[in-house]
């Protein structure tokens, strides 16, 4: 944490995610956002730490819990908010919603809502890069629940066998909906699972943004150097229910409270205060900046028109001619 500016940048990013999501939850209750809404609150250090290791030309394949990755990679909050409102100015013109953000500029290939479904796609992007001698990489995010799926296995094997430049980022928040890791995996050390394919694998405390940044950077460096895949497990926790429908019968309030002690934003804030890199005034300023960004996003989303119903059948097949 030698560079105060960078440290504040990390803090700012985490704050943006947190506030965006808190606002989203509010707007869900207000029925402005509908469908499924999966919040990332508690896991912010993962998305922010990992993003530091990525270059602009790298690709990201994420899950339905992708708001944070989209935002931190550069998708404007306006675009995200309008999408969740189902509006025309949303990143997918309202067709995707919370679970399906896509973006060309930041190379965000979803927003995939089938657990494990993004892994083969990410490996394919890696194969395309390999065949085209590109030096970029693909970051593939998935929850620890995805590890039980057959596609995890198939993709790990192929990624190593064919030496594909993919960062397999496992966001281990200990639960897949209501299923605790130890009730779904015979081997709960996920790095060992990945290593069994001959994949380089590491785990990191996902509540510490600096630790995530360091581990992700090392992994990304390895991938770029060796043109080979890497598995990184970030051990984290979601503070909120799985989605807005979850009664959370499967874990105790105490467990959640204990983890909240390790809130990645609060602990990092304390560190920043301790190091004198942040004070109340700057914090206030940051909070205001973030609040303004999100307020603007909401205003934008409200004002954005709906996609005309006549356009319903667009984008089933391409309109542009094959290049």
């Amino acid at each position, binding site marked *: 944490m030698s560079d105060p500016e960078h440290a504040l940048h990390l803090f700012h990013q985490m704050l943006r995610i947190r506030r965006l999501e808190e606002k989203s939850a509010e707007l869900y209750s207000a029925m402005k956002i*509908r*469908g*499924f809404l999966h919040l990332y609150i508690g896991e912010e250090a993962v998305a922010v730490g990992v993003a530091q290791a990525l270059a602009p030309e790298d690709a990201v394949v994420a899950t339905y819990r992708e708001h944070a990755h989209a935002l931190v990679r550069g998708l404007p909050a306006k675009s995200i908010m309008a999408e969740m409102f*189902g*509006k025309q100015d949303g990143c*997918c013109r*309202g*067709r*995707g*919603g*919370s*679970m*399906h953000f896509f973006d060309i500029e930041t190379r965000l290939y979803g927003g*995939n*809502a*089938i*657990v*494990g*479904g993004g892994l083969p796609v990410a490996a394919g992007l890696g194969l395309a890069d390999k065949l085209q001698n590109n030096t970029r990489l693909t970051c593939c995010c998935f929850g620890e*629940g*995805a590890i*039980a*799926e*057959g596609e995890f296995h198939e993709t790990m094997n192929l990624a190593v066998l064919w030496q594909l430049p993919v960062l397999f980022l496992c966001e281990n928040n200990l639960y*897949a*909906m*209501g*299923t*605790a890791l130890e*009730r*779904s*995996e015979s081997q709960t050390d996920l790095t060992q699972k990945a290593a069994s394919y001959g994949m380089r694998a590491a785990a990191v405390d996902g509540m510490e943004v600096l630790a995530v940044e360091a581990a992700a950077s090392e992994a990304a460096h390895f991938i770029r150097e060796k043109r080979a895949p890497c598995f990184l497990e970030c051990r984290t926790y979601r503070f909120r229910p799985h989605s807005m429908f*979850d*009664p959370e*019968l*499967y874990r105790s309030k105490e467990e959640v409270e204990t983890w909240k002690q390790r809130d990645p934003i609060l602990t990092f804030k304390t560190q920043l205060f301790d190091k004198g890199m942040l004070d109340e005034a700057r914090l206030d300023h940051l909070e205001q900046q973030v609040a303004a960004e999100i307020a603007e996003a909401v205003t934008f989303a409200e004002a954005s028109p*709906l*996609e005309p*119903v006549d356009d*319903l*059948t667009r984008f*089933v097949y391409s309109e542009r001619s094959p290049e």
Partner: protein
Amino acid sequence: MSAPTQQQSSYREAVRAGLHEALQQDERVFLMGEDVGAYGGCFACSKGLLEEFGPERVRDTPLSESTFTGMGIGAALGGMRPIVEIMTVNFSLLALDQIVNNAATYLHMSGGLFNVPLVIRMATGGGKQLAAQHSHSLEGWYAHIPGLKVLAPATLEDARGMLLTALEDPDPVLIFEAAVLYPMEGELSPVISSVSIDRANVIRTGRDLSIISYGASLHKGLGAAEQLSEEGINAEVIDLRSLRPLDDATIIGSVKKTRRAIIVDEGWRSGSLAAEISARIMEQAFYELDAPVERICSVEVPMPYAAHLEQAALPQVTSIVEAARRMVVRNG
């Protein structure tokens, strides 16, 4: 004086009552699937069952659709009566090899030696703004497969009873519960029992046209019939209940009487179950038809998230009413 004994229930509670009864009735029955236990079921259909029947009989599985479905097949072969829950039909694509290549073929391949008494339940359909990977209605696909039986409860009584019927069946039965129907409230008989699945139900009799449907769409068909009756058009409404086998007798009987039919089916139009029903009417009642059969299906797009687009993609009461008017006016 039997009305007061009816009890108020939701479709969800009816499903749960069926599961409860099944677990209580037969030691060999167990429920297996993602989050059926500690979470209480992703649609809360199995809430409380883990506590009552324990983790051996209410088994939470890892995210491994193909394998836990295939294990259902194996457990059925091994003497059990498994109920496999796949959260929604969308995820069942991951288990399709087991369902089509194993469950549906074992009896025939083995020359009659091994039947597979397996029940698979899943939720289906759109209308909840869950977008293109969570809103499919693929039950029509399953109805294409010989060796499977495919049920689609549209009423509380069927939501509860069909599970028990399915468990009595020696062969694999798939039950498609319409996700939008879970909160639907209604009355339920206090007597819990299996229901006959031999016949489709004529829910409402009429003489001017037949509205043939199932699952969530049935209620749209009923809504349309209501509206049409105000215009003096008297629609018969049929709840198919079983999608494989189809009850040709009831379908054709009705169409021969009304001489006009509209099929309402949330699947995409091309290759829908509605197409099959239209083809059967063509084959069995062509000379009695006063107008070509119409299909009201989902528009052929992956389901969009935005509410106005999603509703535009789904069958609606208004489109059924308009089709009915067209038919009756043209040939009235």
